[in-house]
């Protein structure tokens, strides 16, 4: 049976349909989850998609973190449920303290949408197992607050534990420390990514198909893990 991957829609989520399309293209079954519903409907993994939850006026992800669905996501993540936060989803994961550090205003103060070169730094997560070691990929970035910051102790730990999932190469689009584009929790089931793999699943509408492997990876991971 195909894995069921939940895609959460918060008020202001924008890339939820694109994330669902990516799951489908990778061979999974997308399941729509609603912010106000604490029930995860037995999904095997969860994607927190990009967008501007609640407008992101105060601080990106600050309000979404309190949505009923997040309570369930946080506890399920503790039990090893694979969770991928993309852009706004990454911000929500940091605000929820599922991931360390914070995403702050881009150094140049502009929203920036460009096709970005990345290096996948670890295949030891639920969402990157399908990549070749140190794979170079092209995936769009589009954010105004994508500059990753954390204190030096945290950064050292992320480096030492190989929890930096992807790094910007050929130019850092927002000033992120250590060129960080994505990180994982220590268990590797929770991953936050600033770039948008769901926008790189079809050459007709994106710069590449490189993003597909994130979604294919979690499906492979799920097959490997007994239900």
């Amino acid at each position, binding site marked *: 049976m195909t894995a069921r991957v939940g895609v959460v829609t918060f008020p202001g989520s924008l890339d939820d349909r694109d994330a669902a399309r990516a799951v489908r293209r990778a061979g999974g079954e997308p399941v729509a989850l609603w912010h106000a519903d604490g029930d995860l409907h037995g999904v095997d993994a969860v994607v927190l998609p990009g967008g501007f939850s*609640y*407008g992101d*006026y*105060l601080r990106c992800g600050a*309000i979404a973190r*309190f*949505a009923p669905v997040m309570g369930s996501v946080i506890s399920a993540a503790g039990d090893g449920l694979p969770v991928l936060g993309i852009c706004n989803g990454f911000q929500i994961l940091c605000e929820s303290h599922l991931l360390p550090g914070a995403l702050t205003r881009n150094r140049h103060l502009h929203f920036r949408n460009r096709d970005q070169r990345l290096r996948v730094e670890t295949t030891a997560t639920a969402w990157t197992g399908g990549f070749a070691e140190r794979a170079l990929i092209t995936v769009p970035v589009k954010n105004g607050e994508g500059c990753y910051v954390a204190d030096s102790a945290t950064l050292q730990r992320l480096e030492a534990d190989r929890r930096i999932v992807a790094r910007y190469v050929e130019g850092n689009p927002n000033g992120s420390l250590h060129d960080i584009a994505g990180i994982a929790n220590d268990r590797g089931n929770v991953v936050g990514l600033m770039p948008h793999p769901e926008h790189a699943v079809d050459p007709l509408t994106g710069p590449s198909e490189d993003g597909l492997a994130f979604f294919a990876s979690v499906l492979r991971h799920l097959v490997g893990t007994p239900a």
Partner: protein
Amino acid sequence: MARVVVEIMLKPEILDPAGQAVSRALPSMGVEGVTSVRIGKRVVIDFDGAPDLDRAREIADRLLANPVIEDFTVQVQ
């Protein structure tokens, strides 16, 4: 070293989407009894010489705030 603080708030009649989003979120956090939330800017300017209020006021008026939609106050600290 002198410090000047400029406080900028949207005019009362102007919509404050950020404040509105916060006050709407509060009940779901179990916080009741809040009638309004307004979110503005607090700008802290350090001068190496004496605090220059007029200059700070000029900065606020020309660079930090748009008098069409915002009010501001300037204080030495």
